[in-house]
């Protein structure tokens, strides 16, 4: 892990906070996986196991006022942003106490109170909408910022280019955060992208772009701090390409036969979670007991959320007429 000398540096409090967010993501992910495997949840699941450092570090800098637009692999982004887990679990179970009353599901979780504005199932579509939220912040004269999360595959869709151009042109307070997990569905980054770094594309849209080790909390911290400062100061957007890997493939059940042999095993050797834990211990930022207690608290929160979600009622068919328009439709 790098610790460049002149870049913004996380202190102990920041490091432990980032680690807490990572554990919250991973423990929640683990609970979702085990619940699906027990047959108690039926949902398409796009695990982001292995990518935890990215949203954990970004979210460290965000308040509830700050907003995110994310994608179907985005549960980690909202868990990192401290969205409450009970309505999250009720939503992925398709129940009335879900944050979207069971109408959106795991690919469309929304929770404006914590700034989770849009979760889209369409590749690339988080970005144009993030621009609009950022435009509103600009018009309001607010210091709030908007994060647009998207995958490496989304950098090849038109919406990315239109949105990046407009954001650069209007100097919008938005940060484009791309966890580059090396695969767009089953196609490798190299087979689908004409440049070796997505960050190079920032040049074409009048904004700074960086390729960073998305598994390194120190490098992430330095770049996110700078990008958010820049956005809050009205200086415009930044593109952050954060290299990482998804351990579970595209969707749960993916056999990952499209990957060269050994690639996954090698990536898992670089699992950021145990590495960062060891770093915190080695450098004296936390003790075993502190981290154990933190993990247990998170596990309790996840277990309570799961219980709450699974116990919530299923929605009635009347809901089909509600929320299509503001005014309920007649039967």
């Amino acid at each position, binding site marked *: 892990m790098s610790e460049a000398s002149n870049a913004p540096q996380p202190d102990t409090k920041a490091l432990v906070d980032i680690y807490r967010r990572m554990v919250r993501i991973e423990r929640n992910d683990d609970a979702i996986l085990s619940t699906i495997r027990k047959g108690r949840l039926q949902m398409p699941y796009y695990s982001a196991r292995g990518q935890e450092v990215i949203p954990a570090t970004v979210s460290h800098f965000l308040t509830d006022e700050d907003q995110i637009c994310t994608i179907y692999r985005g549960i980690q982004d909202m868990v990192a942003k401290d969205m409450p887990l009970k309505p999250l679990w009720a939503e992925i179970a398709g129940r009335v106490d879900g944050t979207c009353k069971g109408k959106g599901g795991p690919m469309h979780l929304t929770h404006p109170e914590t700034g989770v*504005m849009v979760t889209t199932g369409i590749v690339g579509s988080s970005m*144009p909408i993030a621009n609009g939220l950022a435009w509103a912040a600009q*018009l309001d004269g607010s210091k709030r910022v908007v994060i647009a999360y998207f995958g490496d595959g989304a950098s090849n869709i038109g919406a990315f280019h239109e949105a990046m151009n407009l954001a650069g042109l209007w100097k919008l307070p938005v940060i484009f955060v791309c966890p580059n997990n090396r695969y767009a569905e089953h196609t490798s980054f190299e087979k689908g992208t004409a440049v070796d770094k997505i960050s190079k594309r920032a040049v074409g849209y009048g904004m700074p772009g960086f390729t960073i080790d998305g598994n390194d909390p120190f490098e992430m911290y330095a770049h996110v701090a700078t990008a958010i400062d820049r956005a809050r100061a009205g200086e415009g957007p930044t593109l952050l390409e954060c290299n990482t890997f998804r351990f579970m493939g595209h969707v749960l059940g993916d056999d990952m036969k499209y990957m060269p042999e050994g690639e996954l095993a090698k990536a898992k050797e670089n699992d950021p979670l145990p590495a960062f834990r060891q770093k915190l211990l080695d450098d004296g930022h936390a003790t075993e007991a502190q981290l154990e207690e933190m993990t247990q608290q998170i596990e309790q929160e996840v277990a309570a959320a799961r219980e709450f979600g699974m116990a919530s009622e299923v929605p009635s068919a009347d809901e089909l007429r509600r929320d299509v328009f503001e005014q309920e439709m007649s039967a």
Partner: protein
Amino acid sequence: MSTTKMHAIQGVNAALHQAMAEDEKVLVLGEDIADPEGGGITGAAQGLSTKFGDRVRSTPISEQAIVGAAIGAAMAGYKPVAEIMLMNFTTVAMDMIFNHAAKLRFMSGGQTSVPIVIRTLTGAGWQTAGQHADHLEGWFAHAAGIKVVAPSSPADYKGLMLSCIQDPDPCIFIESAGTMFIPSEVDDDQGPIPLGKARIVQEGTDVTLVTWSSQCIRAQMALEGFAEAGVSVELIDLRTISPWDRETVLASAQKTGRVLIAHEAVRDFGPGAEIAATINEELFGKLKAPVRRLGAPKCPVPFAKALEDAYIVQPADMIAAVKGLMS
């Protein structure tokens, strides 16, 4: 009450000026929309950027980015009016419109909403051929969560635009070339006209003619022909395609027992099919003739004038169809 004679686009312009003055949350964006660029393709936004400054922004030719920016700003409390220069260009932004603007209220369980207006110009008759003239109201009317408005008179352009801007849900506002060249008097204090309410242009007893947008103008050109044929036609301007005014249409259909629907959109799978099906479901047995539809053939809008004239349902076609319903 004082009135001003104006064209349809002046009605839109008056509505935008009024809405922006009354509510500082109203924004306007689109290609060429600011005054230095001409106030939009038809000039409907003229004067707005000079008066309201940064709330009016010209954009790059990026329809997804335009609609996306409108959606995001709307979710954060603004009321953006986006101009998509031509209706065929909405196809470039269809993901933003159909998957996001229309659905986010439902998919978020009512936590977010997208009160945007998309103004868009279209209409055959100007030799712009197959990618600049389609009437796609049926596409949008098929989507849940979006309202579709297509006025024909200058007063309706103003009043319905005011309602679309105030509406809590996304609206597509179709400005058809065929409606733009007949000025008429508009009350200076013309306020919002409710969405979902048709206008009876002329009362009649023999045949109900349901139209909107440019075909309501062409139907008015046929009124004399209907009279000469001795047929009393009740002409309805539907004004809002979704949600449409079933009550007014069904009441008229029940009265006359004969219905002709004429729209500029392609006939097959067009909005007329939905209206005809509803009339059949509700009034079967009370009709004196099967419901008839007139629409464009299932073919792209052609360039050559002779082809274009044949493509568009003309007043003479309506007169012939009305006579056919009576025989």
